[in-house]
């Protein structure tokens, strides 16, 4: 058998003779010192040569994910040597449903921003914006609840979510955000619906006392809208913590940036949707919110996509990469329409639709990237090995310093 990087030297402690190159490639014979990641292990390597240790690379089909998938040319980081257990993944792939969960992330963001827009519109003489934003928030929040329950393995046990409160569980905290948020947004939207004569008539058939309470509806609606807005911001950003607080390496790595990506994406979506639905005269705040959101999203997504070396790679490759690129195009085009033609009805509708589409695709892209990062062991092994090496180097430096202090 042949082992490309093993030249059969007796120096068994030489780290570079163990031949565990997973990606020997054209430069398989690196000089010593090139691959510090693979430690010496007595010269042992998996029997059967390098080909068996390599994760099976399927022919790259359009949008195909899977084992170390993706465009080799687009790889940002050269493949380093590492070993794995027959190329099998180390962490489990999240069992969350797709597209239910990415859509949940999107709806949560859109609803969160809309609720804040709606509450403020109530008090700044923008009745149409307030109405539309409250409807959007209510519908999206109810949709979120449906999607979240549908994602459970045992949907009938949804209420077990409210059995305990655990700050260490973003899903527990999220349940205590989503529950009041969806209650208040649907209450605000519900009171609005009851203000419509035909619906009030219908409601009266069930609850005969409704007309007597009608004078309280506007007040109750405004109170609900304010209460919902209090949960709107957290509703939009907690979902980023939901993803980051996992062992999926490409989600966890970006944990301080993802909440801002989601905040920006939420503002683009919420602003965009309410802008598309509302006459231009009242939609000024929506436009400004959407444009600021786009700026924040693009700025932060750039850090996610380029700031984390190997762990940024899944955001470029395969299905996630396609979605992220499409999201960026839709978001930028939507922002251009909003900025240039947002004061025309057609421009607002086109811009708002594109912004919403961009937000959906951003969430889907981020979701897919995290999924992809769990499927290839290199995203676990290489960064963790680097972390260990850095720690060791740090300890050595600290020791040196301590010694010089003593001296």
């Amino acid at each position, binding site marked *: *058998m042949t082992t490309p990087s093993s030249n*059969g030297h007796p120096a068994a402690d030489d780290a570079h003779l163990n031949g565990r190159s997973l990606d020997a490639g054209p430069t398989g014979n690196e000089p010593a010192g090139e691959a510090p990641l693979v430690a010496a292990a007595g010269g042992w390597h998996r029997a059967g040569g390098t080909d068996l240790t390599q994760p099976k690379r399927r022919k790259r089909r359009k949008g195909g994910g899977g084992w170390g998938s993706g465009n080799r040319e687009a790889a940002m980081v050269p493949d380093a040597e590492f070993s794995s257990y027959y190329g099998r993944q180390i962490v489990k792939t999240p069992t969350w449903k797709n597209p239910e969960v990415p859509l949940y992330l999107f709806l949560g963001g859109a609803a969160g921003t809309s609720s804040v827009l709606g509450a403020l519109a109530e008090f700044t003489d923008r009745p149409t914006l307030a109405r539309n934003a409250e409807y959007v928030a209510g519908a999206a929040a109810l949709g979120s609840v449906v999607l979240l329950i549908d994602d459970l393995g045992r949907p009938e046990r949804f209420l077990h979510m409210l059995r305990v409160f655990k700050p260490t569980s973003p899903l527990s905290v999220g349940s205590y955000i989503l529950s009041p948020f969806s209650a208040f947004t649907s209450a605000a939207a519900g009171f609005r619906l009851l203000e419509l004569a035909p619906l009030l008539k219908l409601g009266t058939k069930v609850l005969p006392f409704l007309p007597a309470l009608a004078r309280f509806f506007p007040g109750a609606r405004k109170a609900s809208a304010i209460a919902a807005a209090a949960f709107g911001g957290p509703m939009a950003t907690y979902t980023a913590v939901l993803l980051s607080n996992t062992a999926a390496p490409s989600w966890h790595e970006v944990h301080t940036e993802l909440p801002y990506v989601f905040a920006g994406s939420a503002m683009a979506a919420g602003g965009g949707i309410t802008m598309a639905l509302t006459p231009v005269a009242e939609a000024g705040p929506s436009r400004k919110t959407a444009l*600021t959101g786009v700026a924040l999203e693009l700025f932060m997504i750039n850090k996610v996509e380029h700031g984390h070396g190997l762990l940024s790679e899944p955001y470029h490759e395969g299905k996630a990469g396609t979605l992220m690129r499409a999201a960026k195009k839709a978001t930028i085009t939507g922002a251009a329409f909003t900025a240039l033609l947002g004061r025309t009805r057609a421009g607002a509708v086109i811009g708002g639709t594109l912004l919403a589409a961009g937000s959906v695709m951003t969430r889907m892209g981020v979701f897919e990237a995290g999924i992809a990062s769990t499927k290839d062991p290199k995203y676990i092994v290489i960064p963790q090995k680097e972390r260990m090496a850095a720690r060791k180097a740090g300890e050595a430096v600290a020791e040196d310093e301590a010694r010089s202090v003593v001296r």
Partner: protein
Amino acid sequence: MTTVSSASPSLEGADSRNRLFGPLPDVSADAGYEEDHPSRVGFFTDTSVCIGCKACEVACKEWNTLPMDDANGVLGQMGMSGMSYDNTGQLGANSWRHVSFIEQSRSVDLPMPTIGMPGADRHDHGHDHGANAISPQADSVLAAQTSVLNAEALSEFDPQTSVTGGDGGTQIRWLMSSDVCKHCTHAGCLDVCPTGALFRTEFGTVVVQGDICNGCGYCVSACPYGVIDVRKDDGRAFKCTMCYDRLTDGLQPACATACPTQSIQFGDLDELQARADARLATLKSQGVETARLYGRDESDGVGGVGAFFLLLDEPEVYGLPPDPIVTTRDLPAMWKAAATGAAMIVGVVASSFLGRRR
């Protein structure tokens, strides 16, 4: 009602240090158990004596009535992995013990005393001592048997280690390791479980309560070792319980009971740690430089684990993460960013209402 035991350590107790990561001397007390709780138990899996018999897998499946699945976790399927003797493939909802097999080779360029049958050098070894002139064969067998647990057996004279050819030949060895849930000091699955279905037992282990779990799957994403998984036809999450039912009846877990070589050792964790340290020292003194303990270090990313290992190669060779951290370690930073992001939304929207109309 013991909601206290289903809360994560971060919530309870006066000591605010090491709530999310780092060493924690008494996990059970930290989870709210009284002073007189049993001491923390664990597994020490010494892979240097594992023979890959899979008795642990079978005992576990039988005792816990786990359904059949294939190497990719597909229920009801019997499939070959096509890569080694390992057809279990991975830990998951239906496999709570998983024996990994790694066939390794290395080039040797050593001056061989003799060229021929594997173990020929053992005869020389026997002659040096000159113990049995009548039957050197029997003597070498005896020597091999008595040295099964020493380092030479692992590095040079192991029956599984064969040398072919004189110079530039190839040596083969098998690594076998029975993997299991680590029952971490800071368990990611336990931290993120939103229902309290996962809880810390009085023995310091981590167990899922099947009647509480609603199948949200968060624990699956949070485990840095890829241990816990959701069973497809059931919808709930399952993993090793360290035979909680047997422990409460004073029995050992099924896998440790079944293990014929004491590769899987069960006991009080501090005792096992001492035993493992001694075993490592023995191996090192016998020249097994690559032996190492995995999960023993209490200052690692998960605060040390309840089920730790003695490995003969890098952890990733066995499919273990080299430097796992509990994801919740960074949760304060995440909540901070999320809160700032949420405030930004309110601030941006509010400021967008300022200024001129339109």
